[in-house]
C-alpha cells in the first residue's frame, strides 16, 4: 500500500524507525547511554588530569597534546556512534561522514607540519631573526659536526645519482 511507504518518517507504525528498532538488536537501552555517559566523564577527567600535569607539560608537551587529542577523538567517536546512532545506521552514513572527515583531517595534516617543522630548513642568517631560540641538535654538539653531517648527506645523494 502506497500510504505506508517504508521510508516515510510520518508513518511511524510501519516507518523506518520501527523497522530499524526491530533490527537494531535492541540498541535503544538506557543502560548503554549511561555507560557511554560514564565513559565520557572518565575520559574528560583523564584529559583534565593530563592537561594539568605540570611535569608532563614541562618534559614532553608533544606527548601531552597527542594524549589529549586521542582522548578527544575517543570521546567524539562515542558521541557519534552511540548518541548520534551512527553505529546502527545503514551504509549511507559513510557517504556523508567520510568525505568531510577526510577533508578536515587532510587540512589539519597539511597545516601541522607547516607550522611544526617550519624551522627545519632555516639558514644560519634566518635564525638571527627567528622568533624562537635556535634548536641545538643534541646528538651533534658543534656546528662543525652538523656541516659534516650535511657533507655525508651530499655524498649519499651523489652515490644515489651514480646508481
Amino acid at each position, binding site marked *: 500500500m*502506497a500510504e505506508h*511507504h517504508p*521510508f*516515510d*518518517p*510520518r508513518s*511511524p507504525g510501519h516507518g*523506518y*524507525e520501527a523497522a530499524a*528498532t526491530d533490527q537494531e538488536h535492541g540498541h*535503544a537501552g*538506557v543502560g548503554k*547511554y*549511561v555507560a*557511554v*555517559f560514564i565513559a*565520557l*566523564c572518565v575520559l*574528560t577527567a583523564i*584529559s*583534565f588530569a*593530563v*592537561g*594539568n600535569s*605540570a611535569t608532563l*607539560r*614541562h618534559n614532553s608537551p608533544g606527548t601531552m*597534546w597527542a594524549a*589529549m*587529542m586521542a*582522548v*578527544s577523538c575517543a*570521546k*567524539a567517536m562515542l*558521541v*557519534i556512534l552511540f*548518541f*548520534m*546512532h551512527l553505529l546502527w*545506521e*545503514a551504509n*549511507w552514513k559513510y*557517504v*556523508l*561522514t567520510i*568525505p*568531510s*572527515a577526510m*577533508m*578536515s*583531517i587532510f*587540512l*589539519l595534516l597539511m*597545516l*601541522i607540519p607547516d*607550522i*611544526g617543522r617550519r624551522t627545519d630548513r632555516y639558514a644560519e642568517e634566518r635564525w638571527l631573526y627567528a*622568533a*624562537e*631560540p635556535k634548536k641545538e641538535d643534541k646528538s651533534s654538539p658543534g656546528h662543525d659536526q652538523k656541516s659534516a653531517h650535511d657533507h655525508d648527506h651530499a655524498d649519499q645523494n651523489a652515490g644515489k645519482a651514480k646508481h
Partner: protein
Amino acid sequence: MTHGHHAAVTLHYQPALPIGRGKLCLWLFLSTEIMFFAGLIATYIVLRFGVPAGTWPVPHDVHLQEWIGATNTFVLICSSVTIVLALEASKQNRAGLAKFWMLLTFVLGSVFLGIKAYEYKEKFVHGIYPAKPHSRIYEKPDLYYVQGVKLTLAAQRDRLTAKQGELQQAGKSLSESEAKDLATLNNLLTNLVQWTELKAVREKDAIASRLAIDKMAKAIYPHWHIGPDGDQTRKLYVNSLEREREDIHGDLQSVAKDLQQAQEQKANLEKQTAPPQKAAELSPVPAATFVVLQNQPGASPATEAEQRSKALGELGRVQERIDMLTLEQNRMNGRLEMIKQLEEEHVVKEGLVHEYARFRLPMVIPSGNMWASTYFLLTGFHALHVLVGLIAFVLVLLYTLDHTKSHILENTGLYWHFVDLVWIFLFPLLYLF
C-alpha cells in the same frame, strides 16, 4: 480490469537514502559543519603554534580557569544524555517524559551559555578583549607600552585634577577616596612610569634599558608561568628589585655628598656677595680687602661690581645644582618607597594591575592579542551554535512529543550532539593545551 491495471503502476517516491528528508538535510548540514569547525581549529593550531616559542599564555595569565571549562564539558555531556533519553521516551510514545527530558536539556544548554557568559565577563573585567579600543593587552614591554601606561594614568589624573579645580572654585574639595586616588596616580606616574622612562632613555646599554621596561611590565602584570621556570623568573625579578634598591642607596649617598659640597659652595658665595657694610660687620678679613680696594685709585669700584656679579652668577648656578640634586634625591626616595611597595608579597604575586584594578592599567601578555582573538572566535562560534540549539529546543517544546514527532526530536538531537562534539575538541585545545 484495465483501470485496476493502471492503478498498479502508480509512481512511488523512492528516496536515494533510506532516511527521512529532514534527517538527510541535517546530516548534509553537519558534514559541512565538520569542515567549518575543522577550518577554525586548523586556524587556531596555525596561530597557536606559530607564535614565538614559549609565549602562548597559560590559562592563569588570561584569567581562564580550567575547572570551569571542565564543568561546561560535563554540562554538555549531561545534556547530550538527556536529549537522547527524550528521543527514547518519544519513540515509546511517552510524550510527558520526552517533554521533561527536553526541558532538562534546554536548562542544561542555558547553564552552559550562562557559564560561558560568566567566563566572558571575567575576561572583559580584566581588560581582555578581542580588539583594541577595549583591549588592554600589549604584546611586549617596549616604549609604546610605557607610553600606554602613562596615557592611561595621566588621563585619570587630569580628570581628577580638573575636578579638584572645579570643586575648589566652589569652595569644596575632593572626596577622601578621590584625593587618595589622585595621590596614588601621581605616585605611580612619577615613581613607576617616569622613573622607568628616564631609566630607559638614559641607559646607554640597550639591554639594560629594555630590562627596566620589562621590570615595570612585571610589576604591573606578572605572569609567573607554572613550573620551575616560573619560580626562577620570579626570584630574578625580586632580586633585581633588591639590587635596584642597593644601587639607589649608593647613588643617594653620592648625591648627598654632592649636595653638601654644593651647599658649602653656596654658603661661601653668599658670603662673597653679601652687601659690603654687612660684610664689614661680619668679619674683618673682607673689610680689610674692602679697604684695600677702596684705596686703589680708579678701577676699584668697577672691579668690585664685576666680581660681585660674577659671584652672583655662580651662586645662581650653584642654586640650580642644589635644586636639581634635591629633586634627584626626592625622586630616589620616592622610587625607594615604590620598590618597598613592589616587594610586598601580594604585589609580587598579583601585580599592580590587581592592586589598582580601578585604574585599568595596560598589561603585557606576550601573544595575548592572538590568544584573545582565537579564544573569542572559537568559543563565540560554538556559543552561537548552542544558542541556535536552544531556539530549536523552544520550537520542539511547542509540540506534543509523542512517537509521531520523534523524527523532529531525532534531528534536533543530532544537531545538539554535534555541538557537544565540537566542544569535546575545543575544551582541551583552548583550556589545556
